[in-house]
């Protein structure tokens, strides 16, 4: 409390300063830096929306925490500007013939307190996340490693986990299956190391900035004012510090898109919108018109899932009729306004480029009617009006509601099917979807790593946690299993494409659109890297 009361006195001080300085304002370093190549201040101000729930690599499970961790910590690999994993803490690696054993050579790098980064730091960090005692909700990201799942769920011994520090600089990792995207995964935050020396002494090392929050990445966290802001400074111990040009990054936590844009317009932020914040939908058109809006496709999809266990949605032709009778182009142009891509497939085009076209044409009313008639016949019904009204569920939010209303209208106009809308608060909604207490429900999915598996695997088993459609197909399962042992990348890709085909033929999900990131940024800010997954890195960023 005392600290906050001192605000009162600083308030007075600032007020007097303000009055005194009223005339001589207009600073903001606009004109002054031109010519002569004088130093431009390299201080970035961005909005990260909310307090990061946890900055412990083993506990983080959301994009806000991910943003801070990706810029302060460094894993074995880092996703580079070409969207491929590049060498980071690992200066080299060997992959065994069967692609199941990886041997990483750790580079001579230091933590921010000058401790060396060791192979043990990785081993201990991964085993920490897999220890059920530690309540890591994202531990399953590590299940690719031999013995990991057993140790996390079935009381297996941590000694049987396939990660071992051979010596200080050599890390050996054994995988369950050949996993072609494993080097992508090692850049993901659950695979980040932490300073095991400090973690052993202070279990709560990750709760605040300070001496114990040691980092090995491009930036070091110097201030964490909870629910208010985080300040990062360029790290002096980072191995690749020559590449880092920004001196500070101030991350504020503003949870209101309108305020975020106003602050950007007022020069209080250098970036507004995705991936760390959001832009107000109403402002999209104006920003597009004045040419400042930047749009980038990311690996994410907005779906309408069908409950394939209830009538009439257990009929594949009815499902197909509904999926075909959506005019996605129009929905994107008039409702979403964020340059999203129409989705007629389930895997984003960032992974399967041919999915820009998809498996069927958008807004194919004739085909939809054909499917509908076939479906009605199979259900022994004569007319679409004989169908019971279909309930379309979504979680309460203006955006979801607008989309649902537009699609409700399309289905009734194009097919004559009556649709009722049903909305529920987020947690109640998830509960309903989990219990299959719905007919059609909207859900989104964002990729954690850049591989089609991420978008297919959840539909493998009808009772899988993220399936919630009640659909499964032995052929689909077979193809996915084959892909897991296939070591030839092209053959593997083909297996996954075949699996997607089976999925789209059964249509347990109507894909609506692929997500895009939309933002505006300071003109002088260059080389902020937003990956195909929509993750942001400031390592290479600078002001011109």
């Amino acid at each position, binding site marked *: 409390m005392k600290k906050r009361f001192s605000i009162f006195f600083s*308030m007075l001080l600032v007020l007097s300063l303000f009055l005194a300085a009223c005339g001589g304002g207009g600073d903001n370093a606009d004109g002054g830096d031109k010519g002569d190549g004088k130093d431009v201040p390299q201080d970035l101000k961005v909005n990260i929306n909310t307090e990061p729930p946890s900055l412990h690599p083993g506990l983080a499970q959301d994009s806000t925490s991910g943003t801070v961790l990706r810029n302060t910590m460094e894993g074995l690999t880092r996703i580079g500007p070409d969207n491929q994993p590049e060498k980071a803490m690992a200066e080299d690696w060997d992959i065994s013939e069967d692609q199941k054993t990886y041997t990483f050579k750790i580079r001579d790098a230091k933590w921010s307190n000058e401790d060396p980064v060791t192979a043990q730091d990785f081993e201990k960090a991964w085993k920490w996340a897999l220890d059920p005692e530690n309540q890591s909700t994202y531990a399953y990201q590590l299940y690719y490693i031999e013995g990991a799942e057993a140790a996390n769920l079935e009381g297996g011994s941590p000694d049987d986990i396939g990660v071992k520090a051979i010596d200080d600089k050599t890390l050996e990792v054994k995988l369950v299956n050949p996993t072609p995207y494993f080097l992508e995964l090692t850049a993901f935050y659950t695979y980040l190391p932490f300073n095991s020396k400090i973690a052993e002494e202070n279990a709560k090392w990750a709760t605040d900035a300070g001496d114990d929050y040691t980092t090995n990445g491009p930036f070091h966290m110097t201030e964490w004012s909870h*629910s208010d802001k985080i300040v990062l400074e360029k790290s002096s111990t980072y191995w690749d510090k020559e590449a880092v040009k920004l001196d500070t990054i101030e991350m504020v936590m503003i949870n209101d898109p309108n305020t975020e844009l*106003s602050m950007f317009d007022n020069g209080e932020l250098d970036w507004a919108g995705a991936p760390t914040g959001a832009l107000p939908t109403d402002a999209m058109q104006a920003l597009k018109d004045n040419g400042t809006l930047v749009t980038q496709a990311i690996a994410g999809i907005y779906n309408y899932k069908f409950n394939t266990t209830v009538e009439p949605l257990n009929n594949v032709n009815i499902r197909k009729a509904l999926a075909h009778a959506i005019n996605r182009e129009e929905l994107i142009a008039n409702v979403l306004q964020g340059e999203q891509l129409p989705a007629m497939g389930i895997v984003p085009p960032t992974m399967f480029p041919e999915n820009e076209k998809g498996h069927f044409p958008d807004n194919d009313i004739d085909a939809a009617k054909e499917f509908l008639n076939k479906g009605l016949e199979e259900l022994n019904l004569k007319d679409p009006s004989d169908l019971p009204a279909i309930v379309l569920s979504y979680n309460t939010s203006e955006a979801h509601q607008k989309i649902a209303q537009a699609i409700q209208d399309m289905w009734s106009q194009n097919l004559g099917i009556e649709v009722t809308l049903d909305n529920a*608060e987020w947690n109640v909604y998830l509960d309903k979807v989990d219990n299959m207490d719905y007919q059609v429900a909207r859900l*989104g999915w964002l990729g954690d790593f850049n591989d089609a598996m991420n978008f297919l695997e959840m539909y493998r088993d009808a009772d899988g*946690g993220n399936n919630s459609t009640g659909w499964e197909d032995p052929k689909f399962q077979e193809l996915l299993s084959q892909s897991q042992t296939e070591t030839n990348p092209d053959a593997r890709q083909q297996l996954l494409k075949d699996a997607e085909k089976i999925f789209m033929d059964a249509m347990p999900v109507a894909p609506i659109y692929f997500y895009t990131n939309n933002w505006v940024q300071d003109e002088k800010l260059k080389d902020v890297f937003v990956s195909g997954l929509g993750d942001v890195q400031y390592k290479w960023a600078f002001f011109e």
Partner: protein
Amino acid sequence: MAKYIGKRLLYMLISLWLIVTATFFLMKIAPGNPFASEKKLPPEIQANLNAHFGLDKPWYQQYTDYLMNVVTWDFGPSFKYKSQTVNDLISDGFPVSFILGLEAIFLAVAFGILFGVIAALKQNKWQDYTTMAIAVLGISVPSFIMATFLQYFLAIKLGVFPVARWESFMHTILPAIALAAGPMAYIARLTRSSMLEVLANDYIKTAKAKGLSSGVITVKHAMRNALLPVVTYLGPLTAGVLTGSFVIEKIFGIPGLGFHFVTSITNRDYTVIMGVTVFYSIILLVAILLVDIAYGIIDPRIKLAGGKKGE
């Protein structure tokens, strides 16, 4: 007096217990859980988490655990914000909400009374119409519109204030005005009408006849009586400003407690819901008690002890 306060404190404890109980059961009835997300957890991890946070215990045990938390004032860790305990959230967030609320109440009371008195003294003159027009605007414009309006004109167009955030005194002014506008307008109208009523009384005429200056009459004789309804309003206002500041805190990016009060419910962050609700309830109960005591001081006709006539 002491007996009265003692009795009131006892009632407060009972109210608090009722609030805790009602909150607990409502919270438990609501579907969902703190770990729900679009990406579902493996059931074993979910079960492990439930066991760790005691969510697998029978309801009566969880209930008594919560009661113990309230008594010992240790609400445990937040489910969502793993780096902070509920006590941290309260001790970080409340001082911010408190300063914002205090500024807003000060503005609302000072300008509300001023406008109300001016309007009453100049009844049906232009001063009356102007202040009451402002008051009607203040009541009918919701605080979030007022906030956006202030941001647009004073921060972006004129550049006098920063758009948002909570760093210096300048940062506090716009949110305080936005938060104060509604209550200020209400107080102005309240003061005006009760002032008019009081001014029509015989004792004011007597005071005038005695030749007292109009300033003395207004301040000493009229206002003291006219302010009673305003004092009544202060109790709920305090609670309203402290809890209702959620929207303002969100728009201005202020790290206050209002944010946690609302989002903890969406997150099903059980410990935070409980801690913050109990905390706010205590503030509300204390505010009401203070208002009741203030009555007795302003108006001697109200006897707090009031034992003789019975309840």
